[in-house]
């Protein structure tokens, strides 16, 4: 089967699809034969508190956690090929736990089945997995549900057939509590495939006790395997027969020869290999090393990762962010010193260069680099001291091991040891040209844990790293970091939250966020490596995720562009979907992984007369030139040669900078108004407040001259003026339609009405004002009242008289008038009778378009008069001068 011919399914419905471009100007060292098989590697010691948000299984996470790494063999599996954990142990001393992570953005499920050494298979449960969710299953529980009583065996994992790429990564934790002290070994899920070879290799660090190796078959045929251990110059070969889908467990370095030579070599590092006569890619292997701490007598285990030597693309092996000294080590633990175990499987000597790149975490500057050179004899294994690789606490060291012989012949493993628990930390190794350019890791801050992303740029030039931190239902935080050549960098999620660090779009992670998923990728293979380290200060837990995937750009999302004004610039962000594609980027498609910012993009505009755009990454800067609409395209690409477009329309609005005069008076005609600004073009459309009409108009790109009429029906007050050019409206500026807006009290008096002895009269003089605060145009204007009165309680009951427009009552030359409220007679009964005034709207008549400028209410009684709550007598209750009366 040829992977590139596998049917590609529609993953997400988006307007844009990616396309494959064979070549790019960007250099790539990635060889197309490179595999992108998913591997999840991790290191952990002691308890790792997994928050409930991760645990979607009813199976609780057992005491213990992820520890020593086990590199399963990398391979190029068929999409439907199941994956396998080659070894589980449930012997009373060691127990096993499976952790599965859905690294895709799609809902899926995983099915687990169990096999024994004889190849018998028991089907098992199906575990649903939401996007980026994690599930943990205690193997003891699984066996109990199946009614099995197995001490050893293998576990096969199958994922939903709806997924077209292996999107579930996993690891199995072996917890050893035999000596009363817990130690752990991590085992990765292996995905053998027909493009793999017939060999697996590993290097074991020196150990004082026997190492154990499990070899599991994925074949329906009997396989005959040769297991070789070279240690201390002695090579042992064992031939084993493995039944179909069966398993053998051996101690490959234990010799029946009890001679002194063999005994002396028991504590030396070992080179291990497994070779089969069966078909390619039908084996998986995993082993554990056993140690005793010399001072405490505590026993602990380590892990042996077996890798197909043909899966290596380069002769350089990378350890990103080595746990050494007190850097990247368990919190509150001791100081660790590091050693490196090396194995040469070739028949020729290998010149080895061990380069240590030390970075200051404070400023990212590389503080030191040094190289250790050594000669590794053919068919040999050695272990060399590296010492404390991070003498200062803020330093991070990463290591690159390079040999001068073909890839797959030199294996390496870094071990860091301390005098106190946890006694040993093991460092993962990656092929420098590993086809996986990203990772997906669950993070947590539960129980005061810290979650730190450790990135290392192993290339010779600065590289952008795309970081996405997802908190379900809360935020997607995205940032592109540029990391210098050979720089190591940590990114503390706790610090990002505490310091409210904004991402590239200005978003911050909410303070309430406690767990989520962290994803990262580089634009291509061989640009960088990363892992997530989770540590707790409470229990020395130490958990490292370095699950790797190949992320290719597969879809562009529409640009979310708004409208800018001429002369204004806007920052736009292009967003792409990244798909998990284990084919190494040959197809530019796969199962949806996550949405993130692209590292590289070419920004284009459809009309540079309207808007220009510049940018080279996710961020583009758009600049408005003139009114109109331009289509902006971000042509995004990765270094696999995949391209996706993100497009959107940006409206460039003309801009009004001023209007002169800034007001027109109601009822005025032929008033000239000048609108200043830019981007008006030659035929702008001007929108004016209701009732203001254009009699004539002329325009240039920066100025519009209008002659306007303002009808009496116009609404007094501020209105919006905008200019539309080429279909895009400008900002709104204010034009005041001025007119009578309120009145104030000049004089408030009361006394007996004319000819009266008891009934009072109240006279109030008011000054009318325009809304602009002026009194212009208010003199000699016809005013009237719109009055609503209640029932007159007096006998006889008169009908109140008030002003009408037809009456022609006018204001004074200065815009004042005197209002009289009185019943005007002493001959009314009963005493104190009167009439309520529900409202009394004082208005300008304005040729049948009355405009209210002041509203009164209250009552008129024979012995008291209330205007807007001011009741007289007593005389001191009258309205003060300047009291404002609104419409």
């Amino acid at each position, binding site marked *: 089967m040829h992977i590139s011919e596998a049917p590609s399914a529609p993953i997400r419905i988006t307007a844009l699809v990616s396309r494959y471009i064979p070549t790019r100007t960007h250099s790539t060292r990635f060889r197309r034969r490179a595999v992108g098989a998913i591997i999840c590697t991790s290191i952990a010691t002691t308890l790792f508190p997994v928050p409930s948000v991760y645990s979607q299984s009813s199976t609780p996470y057992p005491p213990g956690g992820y520890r020593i790494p086990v590199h399963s063999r990398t391979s190029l599996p068929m999409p439907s090929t199941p994956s396998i954990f080659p070894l589980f142990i449930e012997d009373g001393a060691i127990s096993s736990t499976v952790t599965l992570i859905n690294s895709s953005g799609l809902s899926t499920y995983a099915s687990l089945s169990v096999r024994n050494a004889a190849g018998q298979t028991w089907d098992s449960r199906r575990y649903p997995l939401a996007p980026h969710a994690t599930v943990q299953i205690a193997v003891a529980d699984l066996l109990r549900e199946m009614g099995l009583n197995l001490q050893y065996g293998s576990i096969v994992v199958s994922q939903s057939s709806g997924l077209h790429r292996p999107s579930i990564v996993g690891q199995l934790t072996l917890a050893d509590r035999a000596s009363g002290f817990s130690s752990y070994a991590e085992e990765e899920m292996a995905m053998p495939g027909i493009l793999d070879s017939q060999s697996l290799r590993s290097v074991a660090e020196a150990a004082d006790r026997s190492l154990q190796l499990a070899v599991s078959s994925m074949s329906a045929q009997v396989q005959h395997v040769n297991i070789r251990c070279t240690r201390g110059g002695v090579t042992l070969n064992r031939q084993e027969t493995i039944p179909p889908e069966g398993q053998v467990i051996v101690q490959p370095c234990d010799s029946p020869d009890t001679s002194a030579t063999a005994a002396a070599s028991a504590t030396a590092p070992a080179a291990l290999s497994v070779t089969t006569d069966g078909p390619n890619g039908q084996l998986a292997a995993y082993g554990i090393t056993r140690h005793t701490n010399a001072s405490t007598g505590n026993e602990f285990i380590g892990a042996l990762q077996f890798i197909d030597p043909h899966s290596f693309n380069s002769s350089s092996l990378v350890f990103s962010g080595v746990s050494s000294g007190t850097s990247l080590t368990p919190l509150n633990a001791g100081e660790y010193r590091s050693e490196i175990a090396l194995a040469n499987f070739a028949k020729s000597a290998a010149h080895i260069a061990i380069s240590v790149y030390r970075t200051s975490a404070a400023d990212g500057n590389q503080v030191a680099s040094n190289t250790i050179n050594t000669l590794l004899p053919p068919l040999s294994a050695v272990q060399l001291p590296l010492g404390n690789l991070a003498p200062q606490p803020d330093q991070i060291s990463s290591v690159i091991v390079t040999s001068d012989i073909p890839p797959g012949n030199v294996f390496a493993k870094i071990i860091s040891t301390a005098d106190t628990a946890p006694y040993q930390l093991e460092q993962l190794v990656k092929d420098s040209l590993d086809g996986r350019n990203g990772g997906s890791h669950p993070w947590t801050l539960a129980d005061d844990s810290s979650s730190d992303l450790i990135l290392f740029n192993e290339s010779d030039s600065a590289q952008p790293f795309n970081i996405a931190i997802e908190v379900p239902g809360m935020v997607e935080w995205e940032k592109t970091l540029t990391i210098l050549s050979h720089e190591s960098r940590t990114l503390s999620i706790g610090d990002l939250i505490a310091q409210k660090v904004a991402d590239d779009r200005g978003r911050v992670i909410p303070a309430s966020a406690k767990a989520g998923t962290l994803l990262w990728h580089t634009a291509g293979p061989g640009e960088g490596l990363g892992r997530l380290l989770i540590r707790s200060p409470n229990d020395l837990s130490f958990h490292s995720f370095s699950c790797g995937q190949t992320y290719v750009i597969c879809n562009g999302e529409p640009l979310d562009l708004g409208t800018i004004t001429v002369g204004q610039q806007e920052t736009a962000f292009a967003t792409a979907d990244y798909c998990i594609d284990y084919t190494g980027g040959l197809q530019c498609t796969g199962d949806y992984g996550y949405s993130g910012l692209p590292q590289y993009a070419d920004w284009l505009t459809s009309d540079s007369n309207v808007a220009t755009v510049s940018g080279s990454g996710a961020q583009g800067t758009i600049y408005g030139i003139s009114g109109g609409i331009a289509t902006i395209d971000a042509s995004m690409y990765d270094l696999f040669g995949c391209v996706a477009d993100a497009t959107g329309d940006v409206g460039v609005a003309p801009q009004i900078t001023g209007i002169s005069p800034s007001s027109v008076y109601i009822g005025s005609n032929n008033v000239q108004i000048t609108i200043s600004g830019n981007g008006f073009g030659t035929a702008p459309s001007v929108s004016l407040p209701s009732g203001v009409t254009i009699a004539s108009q002329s325009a240039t790109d920066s100025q519009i001259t209008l002659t306007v009429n303002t009808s009496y029906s116009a609404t007094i007050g501020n209105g919006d003026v905008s200019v539309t050019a080429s279909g895009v409206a400008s900002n709104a500026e204010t034009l005041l339609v001025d007119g009578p807006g309120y009145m104030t009290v000049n004089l408030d008096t009361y006394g007996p009405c004319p000819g009266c002895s008891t009934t009072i009269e109240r006279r109030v003089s008011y000054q009318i004002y325009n809304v602009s605060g002026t009194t212009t145009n208010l003199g000699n204007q016809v005013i009237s009242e719109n009055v609503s009165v209640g029932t007159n309680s007096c006998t006889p009951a008169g009908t109140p008289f008030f002003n009408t427009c037809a009456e022609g009552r*006018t204001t004074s030359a200065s815009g004042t008038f005197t209002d009289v409220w009185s*019943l005007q007679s002493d001959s009314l009964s009963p005493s104190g009778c009167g009439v309520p005034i529900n409202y009394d709207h004082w208005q300008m008549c304005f040729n049948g378009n009355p405009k209210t400028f002041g509203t009164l209410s209250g009552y008129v009684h024979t012995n008291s008069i209330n205007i807007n709550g001011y009741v007289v007598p007593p*005389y001191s209750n009258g309205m003060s001068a300047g009291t404002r009366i609104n419409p």
Partner: protein
Amino acid sequence: MTTRFFCQPLLIIGVCFCLSSGMQAQMSRTKAAREGAVKGRVVDENHAPVAKAEVYLQDQRLTIKSIRFVETNAAGYFRIDHVAWGMYWVFGRKEDAGYPDQGFAFYNDSRSPKVTLSPSSPVKTVVIRFGPRCGKLAITITDAISGKAIQGALMLRRANDPRKYLGITAWSGPILVPSNTDIEVEVGAKGYDSWPPKTARATEGTIRVKPGEVYSLAVRIKRSNP
């Protein structure tokens, strides 16, 4: 109607003008059927005409309306047109000359004319007599403790006829007060004790001014006890 005389039916523009003028004439005739006029003259205490005096009519019915002032000419004559049928007081004022608004009983000695307009008697002629001229009260009100100016209220009352009073809460400049008669002055403000105290009103707060005289009064009032 002279406007009809100028109407030229052969000209379109003229037709419009003619129709418009004709409508105005029709409206005038309609108004004339419902409205009357009051005309007359304003003279001072020496029977001399008072120019630029303001004259107005006041309904002798329930009123919630503004006052329409007309101004006398140089010979003291005035005319108020478009007056609906009814009974009115005819008042005048020229405050800058010391003649107060006669519409206030405080100032008025009931000498103001009253008229009744009706279809049978649509035009009435009256004489409005001003005088004697008032004096002026220039009053300042301050807080007794802080000395800050207070916008207070005034009650002015004729001592010989307490039914004639004037309450004022907003004013600017000196206030006209009848001359040659005792005027009781009371000052109040919200939150303050009134002045003069009730126990001292027999001896304080009464002023008397001559025509044209300005009486300055500085009043310091105290905050009321809560």
